[in-house]
């Protein structure tokens, strides 16, 4: 909750749409957002969504149960491609999470007050996306029930993790990212839980929100410490969001596989993560603001800004592709050259050209104002971007492994129905978590939205008084 410039935020400036439509007061903001959870009738779309997401979650449960019973052999993984869809999905999901942290932490430090209306649900998106991401390496372990072997703990085998391995770094990076995201999100929720506690008519709801509010009463001393803590968490989460995908990229770059062993990976992974994350933010925001009539709070300005960030990071990713190809030629390494040739002409060439067409070519439609200001078009572009980013990870993981140094050990990986079931299942589980979240928690931060109002400034009348 930074100090913002509410007047600017309202006016928009330079002919841009405002961040919050005029006409709201502290009371109407509170009532509008809390009503979604407390009093308004749940829209039919929500029930349909929960139905579909619930069925897909059941598919996930089934796929995971069979995996536990049978083992990872039900997936299409083989030699040489030991990392199939599981790692593709892991990288894809964790990348999606990055936009939430970028919105909540980096944009807070940069005093981008427009973030106040989208940070809450973007943070929730982060948490749920990291939950899906975390599933994949665990399931890929082979014996997932022994996952705790990854952590350093005193055990009767007297075996300890090897800290020179990037796979161990990844365990620390992802678990820290999840924990800090969760704490950041919850600390942001505490004042809003107090608001819901005070508004709820239903006794059970009041009790639950009271417990979650921890007895928050809005004391000036509390707010002072709260703002310090919030800013510190943002400061800590900022390097964290840049580091997580960097560490994920280390999983690849530390190995000597052609196509992985490259210094371009960390920045290119981080840009790709933010790119796909903003696509997911738009995928969620556009239907939500329509179904819940939140166009006043999640305005065209928000969609426009998200689209611009997507365009900027998308072009960084495109630069990464160009550099990768250039370096393969300029570096003169036979295996690197072969890798690029294999991407362009090998068995997976269709995927490579599709992702180049989208991430280098198609993404440029975001330069036009018409696309950025037409929610339906923007939603479609975001969906295409998410598909392209998934293909990018597929190309990185699978194509590199399929043909490395030794032609006698080349191979082909074709995902099985269990690979697909697990992937589709996590999309359903993600959607289910998200739908439950918007039903029971305020999806827009009530307290932070109030700071956008010009009347939240205490200064002006005081000066005239003296």
């Amino acid at each position: 909750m930074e100090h913002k410039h509410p007047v600017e935020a309202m006016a928009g400036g330079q002919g841009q749409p405002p961040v919050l439509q005029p006409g709201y007061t502290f009371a109407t903001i509170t009532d509008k957002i809390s009503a979604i959870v407390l009093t308004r009738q749940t829209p039919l779309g929500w029930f349909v969504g929960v139905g579909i997401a619930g069925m897909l979650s059941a598919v996930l449960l089934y796929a995971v149960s069979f995996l536990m019973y049978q083992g990872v052999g039900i997936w299409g993984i083989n030699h040489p491609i030991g990392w199939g869809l599981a790692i593709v999905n892991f990288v894809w999901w964790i990348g999606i999470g990055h936009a939430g942290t970028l919105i909540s932490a980096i944009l807070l430090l940069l005093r981008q007050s427009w973030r106040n209306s989208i940070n809450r649900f973007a943070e929730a998106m982060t948490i749920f996306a990291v939950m899906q991401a975390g599933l994949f390496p665990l399931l890929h372990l082979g014996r997932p029930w022994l996952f705790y072997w990854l952590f350093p703990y005193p055990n009767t085998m007297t075996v300890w993790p090897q800290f020179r391995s990037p796979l161990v770094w990844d365990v620390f990076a992802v678990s820290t990212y999840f924990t800090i995201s969760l704490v950041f999100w919850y600390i942001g929720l505490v004042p809003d839980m107090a608001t819901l506690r005070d508004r709820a008519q239903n006794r059970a709801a009041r009790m639950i929100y009271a417990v979650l509010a921890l007895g928050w009463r809005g004391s000036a001393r509390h707010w002072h410490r709260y703002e310090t803590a919030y800013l510190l968490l943002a400061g800590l989460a900022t390097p964290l969001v840049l580091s997580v995908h960097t560490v994920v990229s280390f999983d690849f770059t530390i190995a000597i596989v052609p196509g992985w062993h490259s210094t371009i990976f960390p920045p290119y992974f981080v840009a790709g993560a933010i790119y796909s994350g903003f696509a997911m933010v738009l995928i969620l925001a556009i239907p939500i603001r329509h179904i819940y009539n939140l166009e006043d709070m999640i305005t065209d300005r928000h969609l426009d800004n998200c689209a611009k960030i997507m365009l900027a990071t998308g072009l960084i990713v495109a630069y990464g592709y160009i550099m990768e190809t250039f370096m393969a030629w300029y570096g003169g390494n036979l295996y690197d050259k072969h890798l690029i040739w294999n991407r362009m002409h090998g068995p997976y060439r269709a995927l490579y050209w599709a992702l180049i067409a989208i991430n280098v070519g198609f993404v440029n439609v975001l330069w036009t104002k018409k696309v950025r200001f037409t929610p339906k078009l923007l939603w479609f572009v975001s969906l295409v971007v998410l598909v392209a980013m998934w293909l990018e990870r597929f190309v990185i993981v699978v194509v590199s492994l399929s043909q490395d140094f030794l032609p006698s050990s080349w191979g082909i990986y074709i995902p099985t129905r269990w690979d697909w079931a697990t992937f589709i299942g996590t999309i359903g589980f993600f959607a289910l978590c998200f739908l439950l979240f918007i039903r029971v928690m305020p999806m827009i931060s009530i307290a932070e939205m109030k700071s956008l109002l010009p009347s939240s400034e205490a200064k002006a009348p005081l000066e005239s008084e003296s």
Partner: protein
Amino acid sequence: MRPPIYGLVAEFDTPAEIVAAARRAHEEGYRKMDAYSPFPVEGLSEAIGFHKDNVALICLVGGVLGLATAYGMQYWINVIAYPTNVGGRPLHSWPAFIVVCFEMTVLFGGLAAAFGMLAINGLPMPYHPLFNVPSFSFASRDKFFLCIEAVDPKFDRETTYKFLSSLGPRMITEVPH
């Protein structure tokens, strides 16, 4: 001896009014008081005489502790408890320890900031006398409150009441324990 009531609370409509009122009360010599608002109002904590908090220090201590724990743990595990020769590299390969050191600094620092803030705020606190005031539920919506507590040496039911009414509040309520 415990005073018969917790204090007197005055209700205001705008951030500007509450800041002005808090400042007046501080000038008047009241110290055991607190202001309540639905969102952080700039200058309000300063107006009641609260300037510095220790959250940043707690965060720093947490972060340093995390860093020390991470380095110590990796050194002990990779050099002393379970030395493994990986391609002839030194056991004490400190550059490889940087990532985990960074992660645990952020983890400990972040948890210290969040839970430290809650702890010095005295939260969770399920009961507080102010929750007895019916209109206080609007402190989380659109109203602003200034409570002068009975433990303040200057507190006197009548003079404090008079002082609070001079600030032009919507309403003044006695807060039972």
